[in-house]
């Protein structure tokens, strides 16, 4: 099924020999000039591209301490070199975080440091040219901004910051990824990454209501009436999920889970046709203004609907944009009554602990569940209030609704988790080779726990992880049905209907 070699599953992660250029041919499609123009970037690469490029770089160096400091202080100790999933999978040295950054650092030296200006090559400074730009376009779109390298760096240098800056610099000269910038455009104009209009959203949500009802009927429960309320003014909670939850499998099963949780807990909630997307690709492309505009819809909707708080559905980078960035971008949120945003997992676990939800664990007995920490949740946010809660809360939820839970190799969990291989704007089909390969470290660990403990359910709290793994599981010979959401498990186990008297 693939015109490239799918890594063999051995249950081990082995650092490969270096193979220069091994993933040089994998490149995303480029955005059309009209699109770039619409998004207020240069339409296309003109003859003056170098000047524009350097102006953009100078601007970013002035605005981002991270970029400025990281470019200066890396000592090339190599601690990050074998930590990137794309390097482990391809052996391409440009996928070693330090060497990916070298693409920018060499230009930085040439044009922004005295040594580079004076002695050039001896200071490892590189002149801008078309080849170098093409390498930028290849390898800065082979970084999923997962921050794993940063964990192992003695100075916390985060390649994600460099990648975001690089994408923004390229966009300003009209060189950009079609996939990412199209999604940004859809989110800006229509309000969600899928480009669904309000009517389509409403009919989708109606369909989900019917699905929930039908499934309950199949097990002999009728008349529960789980609703997906739309644009309800005065609801307590505004739920903002990644739009993939509205139609993709297995995402939609988690949406059913959220609805059932709200229903059973008796929380008044609503979805919004205006804020119909939690995801924010403005973050992936490192464009502050677009990220803010996309994020603004959420808080406008919250204000208009007069809700008390905003709750985020299962999505990694969406949670980062909402948790870490929202308050800066569009805060303060003094018009809300409760701490916002809140993660759906925080809310659900809280309800479980309060005894507001009755869970029948045996409903998930066919599954031996394992949990994959999503990079953005693990390394860019927290859920709950205490550092590390982002690891314990989802696991506590799973253990509350499943009998069989197994943990993958702890060296690949928590802050050391591997990216799914499709995050950070890499989730597009023309680069399926890097996606399949990038998933390899995690696939090895899953295959190991499958062999040893019979794991057969790969639980996630990220829409990109879900889309990525359902796509790559078959390449490795696994069923895509093994991939699912944490609230899908909740949905299975939640006992619906009248609550027993306590």
């Amino acid at each position, binding site marked *: 099924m693939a015109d490239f070699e799918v890594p063999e599953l051995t249950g081990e992660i082995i650092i490969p020999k270096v193979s220069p250029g091994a993933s040089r041919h994998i490149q995303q499609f480029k955005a059309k000039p009209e699109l770039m123009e619409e998004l207020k970037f240069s339409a296309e690469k003109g003859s003056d591209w170098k000047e524009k490029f350097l102006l953009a770089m100078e601007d970013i160096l002035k605005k981002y*301490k991270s970029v400025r*400091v*990281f470019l200066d202080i890396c*000592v090339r100790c190599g601690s990050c070199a074998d930590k990137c999933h794309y390097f482990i999978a391809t052996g391409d*040295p440009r996928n070693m975080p330090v060497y990916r950054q070298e693409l920018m650092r060499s230009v930085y030296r040439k044009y922004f440091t005295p040594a580079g200006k004076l002695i050039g090559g001896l200071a490892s400074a590189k002149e801008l040219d078309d080849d170098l730009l093409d390498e930028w376009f290849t390898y800065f779109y082979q970084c999923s901004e997962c921050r794993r390298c940063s964990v*192992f760096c*003695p100075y916390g240098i985060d390649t994600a910051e460099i990648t975001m800056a690089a994408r923004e610099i390229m966009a300003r000269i009209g060189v950009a990824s079609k996939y990412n910038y199209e999604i940004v455009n859809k989110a800006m104009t229509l309000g969600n990454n899928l480009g669904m209009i309000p009517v389509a959203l409403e009919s989708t949500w109606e369909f989900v209501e019917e699905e929930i009802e039908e499934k309950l009927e199949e097990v002999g429960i009728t008349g529960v009436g789980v609703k997906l309320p739309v644009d309800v003014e005065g609801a307590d909670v505004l739920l903002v999920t990644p739009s993939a939850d509205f139609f993709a499998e297995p995402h939609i099963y988690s949406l059913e889970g959220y609805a059932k949780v709200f229903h059973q807990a008796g929380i008044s909630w609503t979805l919004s046709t205006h804020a119909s997307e939690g995801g924010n690709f403005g973050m992936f492309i490192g464009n502050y203004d677009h990220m803010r505009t996309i994020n603004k819809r959420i808080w406008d909707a919250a204000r208009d609907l007069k809700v008390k708080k905003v709750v985020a559905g299962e999505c990694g980078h969406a949670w980062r944009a909402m948790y870490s960035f929202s308050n800066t971008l569009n805060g303060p949120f003094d018009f809300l009554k409760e701490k916002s945003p809140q993660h759906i997992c925080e809310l659900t676990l809280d309800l479980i602990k309060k005894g507001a939800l009755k869970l029948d664990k045996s409903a998930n007995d066919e599954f031996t569940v394992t949990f994959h920490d999503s990079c953005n949740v693990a390394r860019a946010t*927290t859920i709950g209030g205490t550092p590390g809660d982002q690891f314990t809360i989802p696991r506590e939820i799973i253990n509350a609704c499943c009998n069989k839970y197994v943990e993958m190799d702890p060296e690949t969990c928590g802050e050391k988790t591997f990216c799914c291989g499709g995050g950070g704007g890499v989730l597009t089909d023309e680069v399926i080779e890097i996606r399949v390969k990038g998933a390899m470290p995690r696939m090895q660990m899953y295959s190991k726990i499958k062999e040893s403990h019979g794991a057969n359910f790969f639980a996630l709290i990220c829409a990109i992880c879900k889309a990525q793994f359902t796509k790559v599981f078959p390449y490795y010979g696994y069923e895509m049905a093994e991939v699912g959401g944490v609230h899908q498990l909740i949905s299975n186990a939640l006992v619906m209907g009248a609550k027993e008297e306590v």
Partner: protein
Amino acid sequence: MNGLSSVFNLLAYLAAAVFVLGFLSKVVLYFKTPSPLKIPVTPAPTTSIGVVLRLIPEILFFRSLLKGGTTEKILWLGGWVFHVSFLLIVLRHLRFFTYPVPDFVMSIQQIGIWAGLVFPIALLILIVRRFTNERLAIITLFADYFVLVLITAIGATGLMLKYITRTNLVDVKAFILGLVTFSPTQMPDSTMFLIHFSLILVLLVYFPFSKLMHAWGVLISPTRVQVDNPREIRHVNPWA
């Protein structure tokens, strides 16, 4: 004072000025460059005290390196021994800069001598790993070898001064004290000292314009020094 001494006194002041001003200008530049967003790498502390507690083991024990595999363990060993012995050697050298010499400086003289002996071994580890490890060989630049060789040469000439071409320490002390009290005096009559001293001046001048600024960077890296409290306290972006 002979001509050579005059030149070296002048060069020493120039080098010190470049080091101090260069370092400070970088500090100011980093301070002035804003952090538009909250980007701590999590799990991250939720208080400022927590951030200090996060940084201490990073600075004293290179904690993040210990999270890695064998390559990083070797690096940790070489790097940690290198930095600690460098510090001890510098502290030991304070005896040339002070009169009377503080008790503390006196008390570390012996350990400072040992540090001087392990110093080249640590550096050797740091150099050899750069060409024996395939990944490191690719990422290593000329500048990386340059600074390692420079510091090794400083260490080697220092050891020579102590064990082989011994110099009159009274002269050395007079020269250094002359520099720090702004009353320049004659340089010790020793070629080895001249080399040792010149190399140190090169290091001082090189420092602020090189990766050696990691010494400051480790204290201000946004991913490590930011408090993870974006919901509680609104982080304001000054340019938006």
